[in-house]
């Protein structure tokens, strides 16, 4: 810790070397494993994770595209679930943020804790709870039970993004709008929505990314359907062509990367709220 402490004293002189090395090593630790995933998508060795790969090829991309029809239905399902769950979360999360940022009322703290609960508790609890509730209600497992589960934890992501923006939205702007003759709905349309729009979009993007690769809750709420992460999990446990799994993983990395970058771009002017409490 002494290197951190020194940092304080020598702030003007730039960061101390020890701290910089620690920070950069930490970041490399975060990123190198993902680079390996990409590397192994090009290996010629399909049975083991031999390093360095004995040879390089691009044939697995073709194999994944043409010879593995089992990839497509899970992909479609994941996209469908993520899209619907995100839409539901957008509506419910925005409503919750709007209500809780409006006024102080009794129980507000408890309610905001309630919205954070689905991500604060381990996913397996959310999963098994929903499963036993569906059992009790006699609900058949289907696409909709998956969506129900995903929407529950996606609400939090939208809520977190929206409430941060609502708090920054000065109450004066709303009063100014009403003062100038706009009723509540007009104020929402012309003042509130343009102000929170980018935060909602960012929240929606992150919710989509979260839903798209969720596996823990999905395992419990899915019936016979398999989403892309579930497909991947079964490939991890019982591998067939390992490099094909890598190809799909590379695809997943990029599919989730786009909304993350977009969400960052949309909220970069403000506080960094997006993932602080995913």
């Amino acid at each position, binding site marked *: 810790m002494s290197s951190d402490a020194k940092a304080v004293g020598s702030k003007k002189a730039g960061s101390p070397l020890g701290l910089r090395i620690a920070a950069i090593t930490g970041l490399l630790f975060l990123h190198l494993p993902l680079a390996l995933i990409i590397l192994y998508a090009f290996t010629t060795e399909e049975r083991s994770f031999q390093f360095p790969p004995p040879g390089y090829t691009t044939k697995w991309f073709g194999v994944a595209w043409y010879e593995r029809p089992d990839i497509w239905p899970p992909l479609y399902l994941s996209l469908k679930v993520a899209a619907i769950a995100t839409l539901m979360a957008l509506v419910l999360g925005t409503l919750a943020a709007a209500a809780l940022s409006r006024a102080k009322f009794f129980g507000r703290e408890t309610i905001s804790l309630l919205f954070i609960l689905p991500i604060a508790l381990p996913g397996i609890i959310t999963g098994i709870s929903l499963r036993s509730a569906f059992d009790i209600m006699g609900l058949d497992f289907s696409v909709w039970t998956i969506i129900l589960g995903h929407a529950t934890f996606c609400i939090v992501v939208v*809520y977190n993004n929206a409430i941060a923006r609502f708090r920054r939205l000065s109450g004066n702007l709303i009063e100014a709008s009403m003062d100038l003759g706009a009723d509540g709905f007009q104020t929402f349309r012309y003042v509130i929505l343009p102000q929170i729009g980018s935060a909602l979009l960012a929240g929606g993007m992150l919710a989509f990314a979260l839903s798209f690769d969720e596996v823990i809750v999905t395992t419990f709420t899915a019936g016979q359907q398999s989403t892309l992460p579930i497909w991947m999990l079964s490939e991890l446990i019982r591998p067939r062509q390992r490099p094909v799994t890598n190809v799909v993983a590379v695809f997943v990395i990029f599919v989730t990367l786009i909304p993350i970058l977009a969400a960052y771009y949309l909220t970069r002017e403000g506080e960094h709220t997006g993932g602080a409490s995913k």
Partner: protein
Amino acid sequence: MTTATLERPRTSLLTALSDTFFRQPKLLTLLLLLPPLLWIGVVYVGSLFALLLQSFYSLDDFSGLVNHQFTLSTYAQLFEEANLQIILRTVLMAALVTLASAIIAFPIAYYAARYARGWTKALFYLAVMMPLWSSYLVKVYAWKLILAKEGILTWMAEGLHLKWLLDGILALPVIGGPSLSFSYIGTFLVFVYVWIPYMILPTQAALERVPSNYLEAAADLGADPRQTFNTVIFPLALPGIIAGSIFTFSLTLGDYIIPQIVGNSRLMIGQAVYTLQGTAGNIPLAAAFAVVPMAIMGVYLWMAKRMGAFDVL
């Protein structure tokens, strides 16, 4: 209403509704809150109660059917030697993972909060956000590649003539194993890797709220850098670290995929829940097992709230 009101009479339905909300602001708050609250309250909290209810039932050993009668016997089973081992093992793992995450995360968070400016700040932020949001399974898979017997770690150890060290570590009792991907060390590494962004972001958020003139004030009052760190920076960063630990601790407690893919055959709570509700069909015991992390997290959240950790969430 002729002179004071606007010249243009406004009788639209929306305006009338807006008037009502203006006179009854609480009604609007209630209407806004109702749908999400019903969702979380009924779907989620209702489910949690359903789970809790299950844990008070028991499994009939002979018929294999769930006996729908209130009993504490299922909870008593948690205290059997094998089950207690699972719980202790998981809690210990969660605690170690949390500690390691906090130590690794702090320099990154501190650097990002204090020194990174402009494009480096954006780079740091993205560099933390991307692994946080990128696919969980992909990340776990990446470590399967790294830790495999024929993988990059072994190759590096051989290249550096440190194979003896790796073999020595694997030969250690309890934490060792046939290869890193079948050992507690491997499980631990993957947990730390996968959850660490959850620790960095709140720690960084807490550090960013420490104005630099606090540090100048501390120095001005005679504190040396170490004292400044101990008396100003660390106490102010602590709520952030606790907020981060909520995630690292909770996520480790409940995970069943990481120890299944990278680890030895000894179960953790998550795996126990998964196998009990699935192949074993013992829903009551699975539920009772699931209540353990719930109870631990309940206490944890309550303490975190008292220490002000929620303000940085």
